[in-house]
């Protein structure tokens, strides 16, 4: 059921996921180097516009390629992917840097105290650690525009909640394992809520849907007060304020 390929930089496996999807798996871990390869292959595959390829979906460590086997049989697609993966390097796509406001006020961060207790830090230290990292956007998934960001500081890593919440508000920022996530919509959620971000992550108003972030981007959170959060949220909602990538994230 599987075949192996070798590239200049790394090995990968091709795994069938039914007859209309093929997984190009670079590894099994959440890892930036693997993610960089996934993003680079996705870019090459999109660029190649191969007839019969329906779409491709980058994830932490693999690329799902959806295809119509009657237009492009599995073996032919596998061969094309072999060509595209030849000499693949992780740094082919341009990474953008973002500064996103994040309100850690305890009134909208119900798990902040729990995270602090779990990590042996004060809530202020948790905020400091969470906002001191340039996160890497591994992938979008689960909900439209929803980014999976990593890696969270080791002292803040903790397993998912024992029982998920039935509903969390749109814009919630949460952590679990070594990841942090912004949830664009109201949703059930088993992660630990650490605050809320007023940025609009997802917009289908135009002809093409826009996701604010894309895999490979860098994100750093800027702590804001509850009042600033409300103000930013209102200005973003009215269209007065648009968040654009930071020119320089070296601050």
């Amino acid at each position: 059921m599987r075949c192996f390929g070798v590239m200049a930089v790394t090995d990968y496996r091709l795994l069938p996921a039914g007859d209309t999807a093929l997984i190009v798996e670079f590894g099994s871990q959440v890892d930036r180097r693997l993610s960089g390869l996934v993003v680079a292959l996705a870019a090459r595959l999109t660029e190649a516009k191969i007839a019969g390829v329906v779409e491709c979906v980058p994830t932490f460590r693999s690329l799902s390629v959806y295809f119509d086997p009657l237009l492009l049989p599995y073996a032919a697609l596998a061969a094309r992917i072999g060509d595209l993966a030849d000499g693949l390097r992780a740094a082919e796509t341009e990474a953008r840097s973002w500064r996103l406001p994040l309100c850690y006020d305890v009134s909208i961060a119900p798990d902040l105290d729990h995270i602090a207790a779990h990590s042996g830090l004060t809530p202020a230290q948790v905020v400091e650690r969470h906002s001191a990292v340039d996160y890497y956007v591994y992938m979008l998934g689960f909900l439209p525009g929803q980014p999976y960001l990593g890696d969270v500081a080791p002292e803040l890593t903790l397993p998912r909640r024992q029982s998920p919440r039935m509903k969390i508000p749109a814009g919630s920022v949460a952590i679990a394992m070594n990841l942090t996530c912004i949830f664009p919509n109201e949703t059930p959620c088993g992660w630990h809520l650490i605050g809320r971000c007023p940025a609009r992550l997802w917009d289908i108003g135009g002809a093409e849907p826009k996701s604010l972030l894309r895999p490979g981007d860098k994100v750093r959170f800027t702590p804001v007060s509850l009042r600033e959060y409300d103000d930013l949220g209102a200005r973003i909602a009215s269209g007065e304020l648009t968040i654009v990538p930071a020119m320089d994230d070296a601050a």
Partner: protein
Amino acid sequence: MTPSLHVVAAGLLTTVQDRGRVGYQHLGVPVSGALDPVSLHAANLLVGNPPDTGALEVACMGPTLAVEADDIRIAVVGARAAIEVLPDAAATAGRGVAGMQSIRLRRGEALRIGALTDANVLYIAVEGGFDIAPVLGSVATDIRCGLGGWQGRALAVGDRLPLRLARAGERNEVCFQGLLARPRRRIRVILGPQDDCFPDSETAAFLDSEYTVGPSVDRMGMRLKGRAIKHSHGFDIASDGIAPGSIQVPGNGLPIVLLADRQTTGGYPKIATVISADLPALARLTVGSKLGFEAVSVDAAEAARRAHLAELAAMNDKIIPLQLARTNLAPRLQECNLVSGFVDAVDE
């Protein structure tokens, strides 16, 4: 006044669906679309629509829809259910009509669909389709994301779904001749992508076991009861893409088959994936149904897909005028009343 269908009773879960929203999964947008695309196809053919036109997908319990147009042509295909045409929306009783045929309804009349019995969904197609703007190329409703269909949600009492046509085309009504539905209970799969997360003996047990459709079936997935499958080294994997028909095995070992509204990515090992030709059959397996899985090769799955699409293409040839069926093929029509959709004849 805009021609429309007025929702008098919403049913349990009535949504607009077509073949789904492809091309946006990399942004986290699920594909959605019809659970039983074969029945959707058939319903559209009966009313003269392109086969992928958006129609109403009805689950569990049907709606009551009043006609606010000069007249309309509809067809109901899929699960067996009582189908009635009421003289007006307030009427408590009307005339029973058959599925698998086109029906003309006049202004003021209402269509009432009862409880679904032998499959999970049925489709109500309307000639000309609904006047609903596609979102990201599709009118499929994705309730979880609030996208597409009618306001991103299931129909509710008082909704008025705009129709593209104010009156039905002048032609005779039609039905299908000789379509037989037999539920497929051996579902063909390709092993993987994560079959290496399971010992060979567990994969063999998965393929040898009979499963039962558990009580929680929705548009996202079908939970199965039966032999629990053990993982080799735990069940937490780094999330990857979820193909249609992915069979994921969570911590309790009981497989979940992921369907139209599946999330784009997920983190449980997927032992196997249902082949595309057999996905529509899953929509016809109701709670309590027995099923089993049979591993096939990629080549066999491609051949099955080719055969499946050829059958869909040939479906048009099985449409005959209803009048002909009434005069010459009365027993045939009787049979049509009882079928619940069309499946390929290669079965068990």
